[in-house]
């Protein structure tokens, strides 16, 4: 199993990168799990699929119905519900983490969740996680670990600062990843390209690809067209296909 956590400041194109990665990887492998771990983003829309239930909703349902379960096995109950919530898309599965915890104690629910997710994910060849910059699911250990941390940034100061912070966070969380990488998005000119290269060097993050500003992406966003419907005409699409190759080679 190869786990790729895609992260970065909101609005930098993290979901675009995740969606296209899933798109390309699932062309080569039929055991791909996509995880939407950012309550603010919408990976499902970018992938053009509809999701009925989120893990967060199931966890709430668990909290409110667990008193009535009698001698039933709560782990099995939760596992069944998670499997039901997984959206079976063409070529990959999608799990949406959904909203964060409400009030009350989630120690037990999360401890069960961790166990179920650990068992589940090991049967996939690729797990691609669209994660918010705070890496909350990693810090709570609902998601165990990542092989690759892929940071997406644009050339904004904030985007770069977030990228830097994520790198520090991965250290604090003691995430044992094989590599930490960078994809720069919406890079319009040579100066910006230069800034990004310098930043990557300085921080010791491997710069994987520089994506240009793409009218098509903007147009799709405005019209609400799933980003995976981009095609070879788009430079972003072509370049992301190369990024996917990096992971497919392993």
């Amino acid at each position: 199993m190869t786990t790729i956590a895609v992260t970065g400041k909101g609005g930098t194109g993290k979901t675009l990168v995740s969606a296209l990665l899933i798109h390309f990887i699932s062309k080569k492998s039929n055991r791909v799990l996509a995880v939407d771990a950012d309550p603010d983003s919408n990976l499902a829309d970018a992938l053009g699929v509809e999701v009925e239930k989120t893990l967060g909703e199931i966890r709430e349902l668990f909290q409110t119905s667990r008193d009535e379960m009698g001698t039933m096995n709560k782990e099995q109950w939760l596992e069944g519900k998670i499997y039901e919530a997984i959206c079976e898309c063409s070529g990959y599965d999608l799990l949406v983490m959904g909203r964060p915890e409400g009030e009350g104690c989630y120690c037990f629910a999360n401890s069960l969740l961790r166990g179920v997710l650990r068992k589940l994910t090991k049967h996939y060849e690729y797990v691609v996680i669209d994660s918010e910059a705070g890496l909350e699911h990693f810090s709570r250990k609902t998601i165990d670990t990542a092989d690759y941390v892929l940071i997406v940034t644009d050339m904004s100061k904030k985007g770069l600062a977030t990228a830097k912070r994520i790198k520090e966070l991965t250290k604090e969380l003691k995430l044992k990843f094989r590599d930490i990488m960078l994809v720069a998005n919406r890079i319009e000119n040579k100066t910006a390209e230069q800034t990004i290269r310098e930043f990557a060097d300085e921080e010791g993050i491997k710069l994987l690809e520089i994506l240009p500003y793409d009218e098509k992406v903007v147009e799709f966003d405005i019209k609400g067209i799933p980003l995976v419907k981009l095609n070879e005409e788009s430079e972003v699409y072509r370049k992301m296909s190369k990024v996917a190759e990096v992971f497919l080679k392993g």
Partner: protein
Amino acid sequence: MVERKKIEIPAGAKVKVSVGPEEKFPFDISPMYEGERIRKEDMFVELGGPKQVKFELVLALPPEQVEDMKVTLVGPDLDEMQEGKEYPYAMIYYIAGSKVETDLEPVIERRNHDFQNYIEGYMHLNQRYDVWVRIGKGSIKKGLKSLIQIAKATMMLYKNELPFIEKIEALYITDKELVEKLLKEVAMPVYEERDKRVEMLHDEDVEEFYSCTLCQSFAPTNVCVVSPDRPSLCGAISWFDGRAAAKVDPEGPNRAIPKGEVLDPIGGEYSGVNEFAKQESGGEYERIKLHSFFEFPHTSCGCFEVIGFYMPEVDGIGWVHRGYAGPAPNGLTFSTMAGQTGGGKQVAGFLGIGINYFRSKKFIQADGGWYRVVWMPKELKERVSKYIPDDIRDKIATEENAKNLDELKEFLKKVDHPVVKGVVRKVDGKKITEGWVEEKVEEKVEEKKEEAPAPTPAVAQPAPAVGMPMQMPAFQLPAIQMPASQPAPAGIKLVIKDAKITIGKIVVKKSKGES
């Protein structure tokens, strides 16, 4: 009890029978296949699941009724099924053995999930009437032909892993009408009977309780003891969950606690629990009584759903849940009280519990149970209403009846709540409180030893923040005697830090000259 007997197969049904162990299986069997998800695109057929009627059931029978390693399949087999479709599914196992009892049925039934998931290319999810099975296309290619092979593999695993099962027989059904009929007539009554047994199971019926130390990262000295009559404070873990978890991972967060000797049957004190508490709290606590509010109460983690608080002014206990934002009649909110009690402390006068504990027949029984309860938010009261005894339900105030202590006193007097005249605890008929002694200045106030909370646990704690009256009944009980309208003339506030005090008995008397 629902009668356990073999299911009659209707005449004329399409039946396949096979007896004896299978030589070879066309699939691998290993725990590494656990959690394997068979995707829709890779699926040959779905059995049960969200769209079909289904169930699994284990029935214990006398040995002479069970034919070992026999499988009967009623309805279409795999080779008659259409690829990509869903079918009804029932898996029934008859088991026998000298140690096999009806009580073990649910435990054994649960293992069907584990064992079937060891089978490569076979996904089993859920339990009881929710089972959801998928068989992968790959398995069919590798030579899986019949559900009988699945049944035989499962039975083999049962006998290998649970050697006390001496005989096992399976009945698998894919015939819709029969699955529907048996679910209604046989399986559901058995499930219901089992769930009823949960409520009938008490601390004295079991040999072991279970610990939960999941919270120790927040509350290092917290020792959650989960017994049949006392669920975990967070409300999530019942005795059955503890048992299941301890079986899977005996060194994990849920470990078995042998009960040991019963030291106090009413308070719920056991030598085994005390030893465990001492060890797990790092020596911080030496005694824990499971069903006591004042004397060596259970520690409170921080996760608890509800906090109980003693109000000396009415000599009663109030409860407030996490979701209630306003102050309780004592002027404190859930979060203030939780902050003082949480973190794994044993604080006499406050107690964190799970909402489920309100269902318990032993609910703070040492201190009067429901008859000592005077206040709870309406939302909480409604949620647990059916567990409150009829003769006290209307006497427990909510925020609609009383928002402060004066209103509460008024209400309790009006409804003649037991605390007014003295609480008799139901469990042994003993009168445990004297009741309010209002406006009778001459009354001698003597606190009996039984009610006096042992001071050791309380004072062993660092005192709460200064300015927060510490509601330790031992020191504040005299205040109860003050009429409501008067401010307590003594106005005692004791803040004790790092003190060790041992008190055998406290007698507080009003001197004659004073009034």
